[in-house]
Structures are given as C-alpha cells and as structure tokens.
C-alpha cells in the first residue's frame, strides 16, 4: 500500500495510457468485455486520483514531488547539481483539486458512454482516444516541468480533436474538429516559442527552477505574454472563444463534458504560469486588469449570444464559455490584488477555484442531459421539440437541477461560489459585480428558454422514451455532487478549495523549496 501511494502520481497517468492501448485488443472479444475492461480501468484511475489528492491534502500542505528515475523519489538535485535535471511531477493543493475534478468528470462521461454508444460501432476507437485525453489532462495537472506540460497539452489537443470529429458523416463535426485542431496547433506553437525563450534565458524548464530565476526583462515578458494568450485561448476566454462553441456544440455529449475538464486544465496552466512561475516578479496591475476585462467580456458575450441559439448543444456551449469567465474573474481579481493582498483577494480566489468544480459538475450534467434529449427526440433544434417532460421526467428534473445550480439559485453549489465571486469583485470594482450578477440572471433566462421549449408543453414528438439507465445513473451522480456541494459548502471550501487557493496565493515559496531545497 505504501508503494502504491508513493507511486500514485505516475500511475495516475500510466493507467489511462495502458488502458488506451489495451482496449483495442480486448475489443476483439466483444463489446461486453470491452465495456467491462473500460469500466475497471476508469474506476482504477478514479481511485488513484483520490489517493493522490488524499495524500497531498492530508499532509502539511507542502507539495509532494515525484522525480522520474531518482533513487529516493524526491531527489531533485542529484550529485550536488544546482539545476533539477530530471522531469518531475509536483502535486500541490491546486493540482490535487484539479485531479479530483477530472476524475469526477471522467467517471460520469465513461458511464454515460456505455449507454450512449450502445448500438453504435466504433467503440474500439472511441475509448482509447478518451483514455488518451484523460491521461493527458491528468499529466497537465500534475507536472512540474514546462516542456512536459507542453507535451501533455498537445496530446490532449490531438485526442480531443479526434473525438470531436468522431462521427464523419456529419460535415459540421469535421468543420469543428478542423478549426479546433488548427487553433490548438497555433497555441501549442506559441507555448513552444515561450518555452524556447525561457530556456535560452535561464537554462532550464522546470517550473520551480524558473520561478526562482525569472525577472521582468523583455524576453521574460514576451514569454509571459505568449503563454497567457495561448493558454487563455485554450481555456476559451473571449475574444478567442469561438472555437469552443463549435467544439462543445458538435462533439458527442459525453465528450463535451470531458472537453470542459480539458479547458479547465488549460485554465489551471494559466494560473500556474501567472501565480507560481511569474508570481510577484512582474508588475501585475495592467495585465491583471486586462484579464479581468477579458473575463467580464467572456461572461457577458457567452450569456447574451446563448439567447439566440436554436441548437441545444451550441446553447449550452455558450453557457460553458461564459462560466469560464466567472472562474477567470475570481482568480483575476486575486491576481490583480496579489501585490497588496487584501482579504477580499483571497475570497475571490476561493470563489473562482470553487466555481471550477461547480461548473464542471453542472455543465457536465447539462451536456449529458442534452445528449439524452437528442437521443430521445432525434433532433437538436429547439424549435421542433416540445413536451418531452411527459415521458422523460427524470431527465427533466436533472436538467432543472443543473440549470438552476449553474444560474446561481440557492441552495445549490453555483450560488455559493458565485456569492464569493460577487462580493469580492464588488470590493475590487462595483461594475464587475453588476455585470456578473446580470449575466447570472440572463443565464437563468437562457436555461428557462431551453427547459420550456424542450420539456414543457404538449407532446409534439412521437416515440419518446426515457433515457436509458446508464445515462440516468451518470447524470444522477453529477446531480448528487451538485446538491451535496450546495448543502455543505463550508466543508468542501475548507477541505478542498482553501488549500488550492493557498497553494496559488501564498504557496510560491513552498513550491520552489520543494524542488530546490532550502
């Protein structure tokens, strides 16, 4: 048991990779065996994620370092070297939090996929791509080396685009996949240019090592600009958000939920660059306020354009993009005030980070419900649906829970995180809180439009049956998370969110010390 928990960080990436290569071989034995193997590997991955997070959060809060190929596993500077020369995984509070979010979304999406793709072929290609995407997301969230982050970023991009374009008989999904792949390629190349600049300046690519050496010189600032724009684009920050609407709207329903987790991993990378890599070395005011302005633009454009959509999945995609704005608003207020460190800055960080898990659960639930609606009614056009609530009572109730939670209606979890964001951003500038609250109300209006058009009214379509049991169980799982996080927010904020916020807000020295010692 001790060896397992010591090696758990690398097993967390290795298990999905192994699964990705085992599943095509096992799929020759039939779809039941394949589903069983996929289920076993998913549960194994989720347990490893829980183990890694428990180890880090139960400890003193110091980041746990795993060096590849070192003899005591946290030997970062062998033989008296000054530069950490091996690739290492460094898991601190924020990484542990992101790992838990990804594990939750992974289990829900895989369970949903079993029912969603029941009579369809192609499963031997779908599950390997899904496992590759999950391995890459876990790798992005755990790594302590910037080039390793770049490699996992690209793997996630390739796997995600393969999954977006998974049904080649729909022309639109191919268009969405091409656009997403082209943009991911450009952003990956921007990240690589930034890494080249940092390597040329400082001679290493380890995040802790760079963090102790980076300054405010011109080349470092060019690298910062490239990293911020590239990672912001991959997270879906306006005005670079348009690929996200195509991608989330055209991917199969469980993949949209996992894509949201992948965008949150890119947002995590942005936070890691801003807080841990550059930290207080760069004068924050102009960049911080620009990020806050972009986040407010994201949440406003996302919500207002959602009101126009006819396609149910593209509408929820606009909702997903607008919620990224909330996360960036909370953490952006924290970043802007990280010089003077007022109390509301920490509250803003807590709100933004808590919103990440709330959004992953709620948007995942909404995408899965939209997939169930699409499967039951055969159409995605809101103008042609009606009265599905007569036959799909469970799906309607779960959709209502997800929609109310995301719009910030008490007592669900969206209200708790949005309350923290509103109150702290009001202290930063009242206009931010006003636009954020207005957008929340508009989001409620948007989901009321979807609920009324799809579920209420007389029966307009024939042959509508309730979603199958696997889909309902996965949606119920996410709904339980929504309700429990909503009724006991204090517990989860203390145990999960505050260590993550502290790791970003105050934990830069601990992060550097864990690798460079002393």
């Amino acid at each position, binding site marked *: 048991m001790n060896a397992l928990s010591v090696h758990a960080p690398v097993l967390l990436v290795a298990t999905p990779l192994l699964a990705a290569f085992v599943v095509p071989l096992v799929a020759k034995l039939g779809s039941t065996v394949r589903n069983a193997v996929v289920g076993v590997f998913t549960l194994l991955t989720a347990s490893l994620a829980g183990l890694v997070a428990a180890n880090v959060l139960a400890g003193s809060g110091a980041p746990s370092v795993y060096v590849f190929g070192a003899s005591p596993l946290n030997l970062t500077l062998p033989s008296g070297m000054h530069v950490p020369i091996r690739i290492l995984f460094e898991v601190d509070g924020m990484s542990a939090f992101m790992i838990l979010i990804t594990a939750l979304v992974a289990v829900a999406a895989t369970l949903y996929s079993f029912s969603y793709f029941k009579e369809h072929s192609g499963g031997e290609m779908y599950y390997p791509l899904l496992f590759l995407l999950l391995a890459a997301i876990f790798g992005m969230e755990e790594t302590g080396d910037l*080039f390793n982050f770049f490699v996992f970023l690209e793997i996630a991009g390739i796997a995600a*685009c393969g999954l977006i374009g998974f049904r080649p008989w729909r*022309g639109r999904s191919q268009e969405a996949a091409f656009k997403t792949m*082209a943009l991911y390629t450009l952003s990956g*190349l921007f990240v*690589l*240019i930034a890494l080249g600049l940092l*390597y040329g300046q400082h001679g290493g690519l380890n995040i802790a090592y760079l963090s102790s050496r980076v300054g405010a010189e011109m080349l470092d600032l060019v690298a910062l600009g490239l990293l911020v724009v590239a990672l912001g684009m991959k997270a879906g920050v306006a005005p670079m958000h348009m690929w996200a*609407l195509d991608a989330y709207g055209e991917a199969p329903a469980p993949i949209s939920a996992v894509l949201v987790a992948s965008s949150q991993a890119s947002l995590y990378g942005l936070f890691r660059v801003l807080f841990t890599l550059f930290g207080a070395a760069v004068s924050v005011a102009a960049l911080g306020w620009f990020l806050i302005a972009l986040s407010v633009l994201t949440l406003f454009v996302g919500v207002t354009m959602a009101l*126009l959509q006819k396609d149910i999945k593209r509408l929820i995609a606009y909702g997903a993009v607008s919620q990224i704005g909330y996360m960036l608003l909370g953490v952006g207020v924290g970043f802007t005030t990280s010089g003077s460190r007022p109390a509301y800055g920490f509250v803003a960080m807590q709100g933004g980070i808590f919103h990440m898990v709330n959004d992953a659960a709620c948007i995942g639930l909404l995408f899965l419900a939209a997939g169930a609606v699409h499967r039951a009614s055969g159409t995605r056009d809101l103008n042609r649906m009606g009265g599905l609530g007569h036959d799909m009572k469970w799906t309607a109730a779960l959709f209502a829970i997800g929609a109310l939670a995301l719009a910030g209606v008490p007592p669900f979890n969206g209200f708790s995180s949005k309350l923290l964001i509103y109150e702290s951003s009001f202290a930063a500038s009242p206009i931010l809180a006003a636009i954020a609250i207005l957008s929340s109300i508009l989001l409620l209006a948007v989901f009321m439009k979807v609920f009324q058009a799809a579920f209420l009214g007389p029966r307009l379509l024939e042959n509508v049956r309730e979603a199958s049991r696997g889909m309902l169980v996965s949606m119920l799982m996410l709904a339980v998370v929504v309700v429990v996080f909503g009724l006991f927010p204090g517990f989860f904020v203390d145990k999960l969110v505050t260590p993550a916020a502290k790791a970003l807000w105050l934990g830069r020295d601990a992060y550097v010390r864990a690798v460079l010692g002393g």
Partner: protein
Amino acid sequence: MGNFPFVVAMLLVILGLYTLLFKRNLIKLVIGASLIETGVNLFLVALGYRTAGIAPIYTYAPPALADRMVLPTPQALTLTSIVIGLATTALLLSFAVVIHRHYGTLDVREVKELKG
C-alpha cells in the same frame, strides 16, 4: 553568426502567421501551420548552438574540444516538436479531406456552417 538564425526563425513564424490570416484554401492554412512549426524548430535548434562546438557525444570526443559541446536539451525538444507537428498535420489534412467531401469546397470563407 550572431542573432541571424533567430531572425530567420522569427521571419518564418511571421510568414506562417501571414499565411494563416490571409490565405483562403484550407490546405494553405495547413501549410501555414507547418511553416510556423518549422520556424519554431529552427529557433529551438539555434538556441543550443555554441560557436565552434562539437556534437554532445562523449564517446571519441576530441579531448581539446571536449568541453565545448552544443546543448543537447534543445535538440530533444526539437525532436519532440517535430513528432507532434507530424501528428497534428496528419490530423488536419485528414479533416480537410472529409470537409471537402461534405462541403464540396476548400475555401475557408465557405466552410462556415457553424456561425452565429
């Protein structure tokens, strides 16, 4: 030598960006992405160069120059980047083929069913 390799690398990147912004054919966009990749790879390789250095191999290294080796890490970074570039270009081109089958055109201003 000086900064000349870096200038050429950035020039390639700018030419690639120009292609991505102003060309209309999807295949030309893929070529533009490939140009940017080439520029970035050239930039990475040029980072590691040391004037009059030898290859970073210890076996049979001439003793007079044994402490003047070019940096091996950027070479590893470049190899990884070339492989990633291969995978992304292959994926982009296969999507372009299927798009042509569905839309009948490769003009990026016509492939815009997902708008609004």
